[in-house]
Structures are given as C-alpha cells and as structure tokens.
C-alpha cells in the first residue's frame, strides 16, 4: 500500500478571486501537471489519460453548493487514484 498524500485548502473568495484559482487549475490541466503545496504538504498531480469529471450543484436553505470533481488513474503510482475536488459555495440570498 502506498502512503496517502493529501492537500486541502479552504478559504473565503469572491467571483473575481475564485477565477484566479480556476485559471491556475486550468493552466495545470493544459500543461499536464498541477503542483499543490501548503505548510509541510507537497503534492504533484499529473492529469492524464481518461479523466472522470463530475459536476454537482445543490441549492438548499439559502445556500448553494457547486462541486467539481476530477478523478483519474495515477500513471506515476499504478493501482491508485488521483483526485482533485473543487467546491465553490455561494449564498444565493445575497444580491
């Protein structure tokens, strides 16, 4: 069994700043590699081959949840999965 590596980031953003993150991820997909690092965690993911892509959206009790998920087989470590999860939350009650 290989060691599990994780990267997680949660922050508050607005439409304009969220786009910067989406741009950075888009660029990573185009170039075929996304480097994710924070504190002591460092994780490089290489999207390639077939990618399972799910979009989920939900509206409930004044809250909107938009979930983007990319899953693919990790070519660097056989038999394991890589996963990039993107969550965007916004409050649809706001103007």
């Amino acid at each position, binding site marked *: 069994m290989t060691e599990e590596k994780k990267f997680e*980031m*949660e*922050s*508050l*953003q*607005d439409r304009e*700043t969220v786009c*910067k*993150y989406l*741009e*950075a*991820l888009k*660029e*990573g997909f185009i170039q075929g590699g*996304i*480097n*994710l*690092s*924070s*504190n*002591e965690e460092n994780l490089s993911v290489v999207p390639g081959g077939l990618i399972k892509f799910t979009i989920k959206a939900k509206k409930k009790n*004044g*809250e909107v949840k938009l979930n983007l998920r990319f899953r693919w087989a990790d070519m660097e470590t056989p038999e394991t999965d890589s996963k990039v999860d993107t969550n965007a*939350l916004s*409050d649809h*009650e*706001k103007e």
Partner: protein
Amino acid sequence: MHYFSDLEEKIHFMVLEVNRQLEDTLKIIQDPVPDRVDRVKSRDDRIDNYKAIIENLCFSRIHGHENLRKDKVDFIRAVNIISTNLERISDFAVNIVAQLSYLSRVEFMHDYNYTPFFRQISTSLDQVVPGLFNKDLNRALSICRAEFMVDKLFKRSFDQIIQELDSSTSKQDLITCLFIIRYLERMGDALLNIGKAIIFSVFGEKLKIHQYQALVENLDSINNDISIHNVGFESIWETRSGCRIGKIMDSPERGGKAVLFKEGKVQKISREKENIEKWKKIFPSLVPGIFSYNQTQDNASMLLEFLQGCSLQEAIVSQDREETLENATFLLKETMSLIWNDTIRNKRVSARFTAQIVQRIDDVLMIHPEFNFSEARIGSLTKPSLNRVIAILGDIENELEAPFSVFIHGDFNTNNIIYNQKDQQIYFIDLHRSCHGDYVQDVSVFLVSNYRKPIFEPEVRQAINRLNQEFYSFARQFAAENSDPTFNARLALGFIRSFFTSTRFELNQEFALSMYQRALYLSEKLIAHHGRPWKDFSLPRDVIMYSRF
C-alpha cells in the same frame, strides 16, 4: 503539585479507567462480546467508587484544619467538578452499551460515523491530568474545544438519522442509534465542564484582597456617603483588559444609590481618568462622572457614576429590538456625527492596525495554532505565508495615513456604548484608549464587535446585519463629505485587525474560522490592489454581514 499528590493519583487513575471504559464501549459497538459488556458494567462501579473517594478527599481537605489559601480551595473545587464529570462520562458509556441491546442488529450503528466521537473524547481525556496539575491553559482550552467538535459530529449523524426516518422500515433501530450518539454528545458536554474547571482552578474568581482595600478607600474618600458596611456588590466581573468592575449599591434605607467601582493596573486606570476628563471638556454628558480616584504603586481604582441604560449589545438581544435598535442607531449616528465634526483636526494619523496584529498574533496562534500557515502553491498561483501577509500589510499601511484626525473612543465595542431610551442619550464607557486618532479604528471595531456576537438566530442576525449596514453607510458618507479617499482601504485593514484578533476570544472553531477567513480574504484583496491608487479600492460590504455556510 506535591501538595495534592493524593488527589493527583486518584484523578489520574480515574481518567485511565474512564478512557478504558471508552475503548471497551467502542469495541462493543464493533463486536458485542458479552464478557466485555460485563466488564464495562463492573468498571463503572469502580469509577463510582473513585468519585466517592475523591469527593471525600476534597471535602475533608476544604473543611480540615489546614486553613487552606483560596487558590488551593479553588483547585480542590475544580478537582471535585472534574471527578463528577468523569463519572458522568462513564455512566454515558454504560448507557450506550445498554442501548445496543435494543438494536435488531448491532451493525446498524456502523452506518454512523461514531469512531471520531471516541477519538475526540479520548484524546481530550488524555489532557486532563497534565492540564490540571501543570495549570496548562492550552490543554484546558483544547478540552473545551472538543465539545464543539463533538457537537458538530452529533449534528451530522442527527441530520442523517432524521432524513432516514422518512423512508426507513426500522424506525426503532434508528431511534436507538440516535440515543447512542446523543450519549456521545453528552460526553462532550461533560468534557466542557472539565475544561472550564481547569480554567477556574487557574484564575479563580471574585475580589482579591487588595481590590477590597481599594474599594474601602474609595468609599471613604467620598465623605462617607456610602460606607463599606452598608454596601452590597451586585455584580463583579473582569474586563478583557484586566480591570475589575463592580456595581455597588448603597443600602435601600439610604436611597439605594449605585456607583461603579473600577480597579486595575495604574497605567490603565490613570489613563482612563485623564481621558474621561478630556471627554468632559468636549462632551460633558457623554461619559460618567468620577467621584473618587485612588492610586498605590502598581494599582489604581476609582468610583464612577453609574450610568442608567443598557449597552448597545443588550439592546440587540432585547425583546423589542426593532424599535430599540432603530432609535439607538439614530442617536448613535447623531452623537458620532457631532463628535467627529467638532473634534476634526487637520493632522494626518495612522491607526497602526498592522502593529496591533503583530502585538496579538501569539495570543491568537496559542488558541488557534492551525491559523498559522507557510507559503502555499496551487499550480502557478502562490499564496504568501501568514508572516509575509502581515509584512506586506505593514508596507501597505505605510501608504495609508488618515488625512485628518478626530477624538476617538479607542475601544468602540458595542458593550462600551450605553443607550438610555428614557433620556434619549448615548454614553461611552471604558475610555482608557481614547485619543486623537483615525475614526476608521472606531468604525471597524464597532462593526466587527457586532459581527462577532455568537448569536445565530436569523432574526437577531438580520438586526445585527442591518445595524452594521447602516453604520457603515453613515461612516462612508462622512468619509465622502470630508474628502477621505483611502477610507475603504483603511477600513479593510481595520477589519483584518479586528477579525483576526477577535478569534482569540472565540472557542467555537467554526465561528472563529469564519472571522479568520474574512481577515485573510481582505488581506488578499488589499495585496492584489497594491500598486494601484487606493481611492479605487472597493470594499465588499458582505464581509461584515454574517452568513451561514
């Protein structure tokens, strides 16, 4: 603490037994072996025994012939509270085991993520002995915080069960599972009591002897109008700035006159006295009168006029808040407008928000170590470390002096503003930080002090949001009328300072996180704008409105 080695030993064993109780309960949920069930029941008897022994020890020490000092008595009281709550946790474990027998299949419980409950509770129990005997407040806080985590876990499983109840054919099993996780949730409540008891054992409460003496001297110096023998303390509380305040009532036969006694470090109290005198020259009716002032080498105290009314904070939660708040907000805006317009001086000033953050950052990170972060990368995007963010904010602030100064309150919290409906008057209290400064400091402290109230009922929140909206618009209009182009940017810095430092008083992890994330969001906005004219910086007003997501 060798003095209490007998108690330490007993509490230590009790914690170990309760932890084993939890381990076995968890194993029984996974695999209900009858032997293990019996073990849990007989261990509960031993734990009850420990509780009785500790209780006896505590009472005999307090009522023995040792003539214990107050801090020692406080410590013993804390030990007793802790042992009572440990016993409660063991009882809940027994209740869980008993509930399991009502399940048609024990596997039913496996649908609910119960392991994290046990992990949280057990890790916190490990902190009890070192926390109590080393007077370690960090450990005490971490025990308190476990309760918030356990509550969160409970909510998740609770929602899941409620949803499943609609369609399930095994309603009895679902209800039983709900009972079980409810007992886990109550273990969290017992942990909170334990954490609070440790904090109490460190700080104690009530008046210290030198404060009592100071009070006597103050009462004497106002010509025996009120004598110490006839007065009663209605309330004593400690402010965050370390002063002690008490409301003193004269006996009803003598008219029941009330005054406020305030005692603390000489620097703070003497500065407050000077500031009250300055305010008296500007707006005599805005601040309390000083009846007497006394000073020793380190401490000072004074008797102040007791101002009738309620704090704005109390007005927010009052029954008739709609009307009260509307009127109080109107009066507050009128008062602020008068103060600002009358005291405005053509002198550039800086609130030094970044320096205020730097001063308090260790306290914040002690309570929330997870708020510290190093540089992060998401592909080509780089996010600077916390230290770097603060350094850049410092550079930004150097470009952002206020174009004029006004006389500011300096700690413009909602609970430092008194509203008197009858006399249609606003009063200021707690004035040791007043000075000629940037009005944006008062604006940001006021708005964040409203935001950080841990009240989540939608109606009250709406009222708070409305109040914030109205006060923000009022301040922005003043900025526009007085040609203050960097108002928004400085206000963002003030919010960052207040949001960030407010987290050190907030143990509700989720709420603290919402303030911390707002501080970081605004920091990123300011940093991204750096280099462009500050007059163009726009402040997203949503940041001072609480939203639940």
